[in-house]
């Protein structure tokens, strides 16, 4: 589903942070164009 797709990642410090999502989507062949972790509290 994510193969060769450009992906923008918005991670959550108290959920799943950006780098963790990044590692997952890369294994599915996605091209991560932007990744960030934010704090929502």
């Amino acid at each position: 589903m994510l193969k060769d797709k450009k992906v923008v990642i918005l991670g959550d410090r108290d959920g799943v942070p950006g780098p963790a999502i990044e590692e997952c989507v890369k294994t599915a062949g996605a091209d991560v164009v932007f990744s960030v972790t934010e704090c929502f509290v």
Partner: protein
Amino acid sequence: MSFAVVKAASYTLAHTPDFIPFGSTPTTAKARNDQEYFDALKKGLRSFDELVNYPPNQCYIGNITPEQLGEIAQPWYKDAAAAERTGRYGDIMPQVEFYALLKAADAFDLVALTPEFIEQANPALAAHPLLKRYTLDASKGMAAANMHAMLEEHKAEPLNMNGELVGIVKQAHDEDENLSAHIMLENLTVKATGVHAALCLEAQGVDLSEVDYIIECSEEACGDINQRGGGNFAKAIGEMIGCVSATGSDLRGFCAAPAHSLIHAAALVKGGAFKNVLVVAGGAVAKLGMNSREHLAKDMPVLEDSLAGFAFLISENDGVSPIVNTDIIGRLNVGAGSSPQAVTSALVSEPLKAVGRTIPEICRYSVEMQNPEITKPAGAGDVPEANYKMIAALAVKEGQLERAQLMDFVKKHGMQGFALTQGHIPSGVPYLGHGRDAIMNGEINSFMVVGKGSLFLGRMTNLFDGISTVVEKNPGVQGGHGESAGFDKDEARRLVAKAMQDVAARLTESEE
């Protein structure tokens, strides 16, 4: 060396509806001329009584436990039972007292109040058991007309009461933005709310003159153009509350700073450098009304209408109070991974494993204790519950818990979030008071304090931070609280005699 103990903890709030426009969300709305937001904001404000009666606030100041809070039906902001402004751990002060305290905290004549307001504030100070030591001089008041002139020149920020101007905070320098009126307002707020929290320890019997070190751990920075963030809030607060024997410093680490401070304080005491370390933090102006847009959109009142503070005293082992077991310190090292599993392992399971203990052996976990009624409408979910689920899942993965017991673990080892979304305020330490009491009453044996901080917000690193430790029953307590085992002289004599016998035997052998 003996572990340090948690001697006392205090928690306070200051109702500041007229300060909400200084928050980050309202400031952004102002820049966009969003009048619709401000019209809704005005209608969404709570009265002082509504703030006091709000069950999470009653939990924060110690009148109900987190367990009791969990039994109260939500929404908590509707039809709350009448309650007291003073609790076992602290006090909720109205805006008039807060403004008066802001002036009392002002060492550079930056806060000006109208003579009429001072006349109104002095009786309020005099009636407060802890604030009666401060009296404002009405002869030094400033006329409102002069204040308006300074506001028009952008040399001051307004102090309003129900929209009416009663005072200003002036800039401390003409050109230095680090000493602007807004920064001075934020910093004096930290000082005043920190003072309020620390004084509430005195109400619990703490002699503040015996404090010998102070750590301040909020999220603001005071300093001028040459040393922005130089500090030192700790000594400024200590000066105002009679900590004459103390020195101190500020510790910063975003929301994780209070948990870092707990460990620093415990280490300073355990290492013998200091005997009584006061950890204190004031409130964050920027976070007032932070989620108000979402609350108002859902016809809720503005729940972030107050400033919070806390203080706790870490002292030498008295044989009774719960110890800070610094043999157990979870840490998110620079090289640690950032996946939820890696973070929870580093902060929870690994430090326990290192001392041969398991996750379910710790009775309670005090994590990010944000009030879910504030965070859920804003889309951030129930933060404490998410943390508990992660800890439980890790316990399952490590074979310490059956999968079917996961939600039971959340219920038994977790608790309801009850703290205001003021950054450092909800992180790990809101349970120190309740947890201390629960241990002293024999209801639990231990709890883990877990603090997390979003370092990436400073744009210096993508890392985030976390640190944890365990507070537990003092092994000096035998058969109930209040009874110390003390030093067993007979056992010591036997050990010394045995050692001397061994030495004598070895000497005899070597002579032979």
